[in-house]
């Protein structure tokens, strides 16, 4: 599967932006800037009106994107209009997947996603217990289904998730919701330790905002880093200040590069035994 391939050549840098934030055209430019900055996979948010798993930063991005007219149909056009070559993961809530097309289940959405070239999904309100229909559709169309593993996920639950996951596992660095933090949680290390026996790439997200964070996380054994809020902050600030989209795109590229380099630097410092085989 193509997502897993993105981890083949070293640590993967996986940035997130909400599609259509703050408007369709700027957003295209911003996502493309992420690739220039070194993204290995890009998580594209399809905004849902009730983003219960998000922190305020991404919640506000969702509001901006919805106000600019983003819909599932526009989202697929957006993906087609994007000029990037790295794999794209669609991050959204289950109701939008469930309701698309004939309103009877996830298959039409997955089919359309595959059609426009999306490689996988992250669905924060869909735990493994409820994911069979989506898993089946993903299998049918050859897409990955990424699951989030929380610091509180243990034992049977972890087992169940790891049976369902494909592409990569999204390791939630700490309890809470998405949002940039100034330090890295100790919970990350123990989560990575619990996951070490599973043979699937582990990408850590929640709260990574700088190259130093990225370096520290990858050094601890992560196969990839997921960064959302720190990037969305740049979009939000640019929008509020009325900055030229090109300038904002440059800032995104700059932070992306810092994060990517941090990840690479972290990988180079890893003790040999923690390398993936």
């Amino acid at each position, binding site marked *: 599967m193509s997502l897993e391939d993105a981890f083949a050549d070293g640590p993967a840098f996986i940035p997130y932006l909400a599609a259509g934030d703050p408007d369709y055209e700027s957003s295209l430019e911003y996502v493309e800037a992420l690739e220039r900055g070194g993204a290995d996979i890009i998580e594209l948010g399809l905004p849902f009106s009730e983003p219960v798993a998000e922190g305020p930063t991404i919640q506000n991005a969702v509001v901006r994107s919805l106000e600019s007219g983003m819909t599932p149909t526009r989202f697929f056009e957006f993906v087609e209009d994007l000029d990037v070559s790295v794999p794209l993961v669609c991050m959204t809530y289950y109701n939008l997947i469930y309701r*698309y097309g004939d309103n009877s289940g996830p298959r039409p959405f997955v089919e359309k996603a595959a059609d426009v070239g999306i490689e996988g999904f992250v669905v924060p309100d869909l*735990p493994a217990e409820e994911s069979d229909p989506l898993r089946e559709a993903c299998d049918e169309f050859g897409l990955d289904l990424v699951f989030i593993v929380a610091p509180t996920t243990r034992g049977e639950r972890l087992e169940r998730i790891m049976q369902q996951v494909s592409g990569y596992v999204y390791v939630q660095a700490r309890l809470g919701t998405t949002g940039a933090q100034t330090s890295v949680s100790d919970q990350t290390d123990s989560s990575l330790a619990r996951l070490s026996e599973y043979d699937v790439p582990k990408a850590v997200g929640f709260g990574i905002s700088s190259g130093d964070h990225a370096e520290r996380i990858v050094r601890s054994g992560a196969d990839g880093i997921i960064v959302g809020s720190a990037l969305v902050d740049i979009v939000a600030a640019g929008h509020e200040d009325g900055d030229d989209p090109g300038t904002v795109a440059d800032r995104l590229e700059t932070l992306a590069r810092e994060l990517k380099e941090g990840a690479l630097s972290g990988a180079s410092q890893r003790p040999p035994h923690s390398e993936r085989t």
Partner: protein
Amino acid sequence: GKFGDYGGQYVPEALMPAIEELNDAYERYVLNNEDGFMDDFRARLRDFGGRPTPLQRAGRLSKRYGREVYLKREDLVHGGAHKLNNALGQVLLAKYMGKERIIAETGAGQHGTATAMACAHLDIPCEIYMGKRDINRQRPNVFRMKLNGSEVNPVTVGRGTLKEAISETMRDWATNVEDTHYVIGSVVGPHPFPSMVRDFQAVISEEARTQAHEQMGRLPDAVIACAGGGSNTMGAFAEFVEDDETSLYAVEAGGSTLEVDEEAGVAPNSASLTTGSEGILHGARTLLLQDRDGQIMESHSVSSGLDYAGVGPELAHLVDTGRVTAVNVDDDEALTAFHRLSQLEGIIPALETAHAFGYLEQVAGPDAPADSDEEADDLGEFVVVNVSGRGDKDLESAIEETYERDIDIAPNMDEFTGGL
């Protein structure tokens, strides 16, 4: 955890362990009365909550509607509504689970005040999330929560209403899940909430069923309750579900119209059972007010307590199977019923509750259309209406809305048009 296709547990992974822990506690303490939990709960409902509430014959309504109309007086519960039944149950359960902190969200403030009272009574810290806009509109309830020692956290994201407060509370729970219990205020959310809240509220129908036997020597022909999220509805119905001779009516807020403005994403009603479609919101699959893409629509009702775009999954299932009949009453009918009950029975109901009485008038009132005869017959001779709450909290709204709508049976409102 499933009611037909509805229900389930659609929540972020970080919350799943807490939900599993809660489910375990629900099964042990609530279903199996471990450590005498349910005895403790029932004793507190009695002594602190004021239960049992009466099943009162409404003399003047009985005359008006040509049948025996009985009122289940949840408005007399401590705090003024059925809300305490659930809040007290969950806060007590949290204590039994060893939790050290309670959080809840509130829209109009009724669930928040009930939770704050329960937390003061049970000596556990409490934080309530409330949209900034709701805080400004419901200041007496905010003050009450603070008087009871709760923190009230304003939520400024987005429009600053219930939906943002729910998200913010989920966020807090996801962050502090290990020592914190999130008290959900209705029969919504992921399993076990819909079942657990129903079980805590079922005391309403348990009492009403016994009282009906004592007072009338038989079961009622119909039970009528208003339905927003559905907690008073499920509480009023639960023990009657197996009684085939008793019809159950869930009265939704018809708002200004059942027509939907897809363009604006607005449903000017809260009639999820009548007009909603299947979807996933706030942890459960159920009937929702949503646009064709699956985005949740802004709902509306003159009663802020019914103003919610979803409905409890079990209630949705009972409507699908035909056991419960979903009907609706619009804003004008509800306001008129609010005034009618106040004048005829000396009970000022919550605007939520007024919807239930609006249905009686709609099908059995003196001005009911001829084609409602069949519905009136279906109600039978002995009708129980659940008076889910009292209207003290709604006085300001009643003034404003009555004046705007020119309700003909209302008292002269001129001197109150500037508010109270």
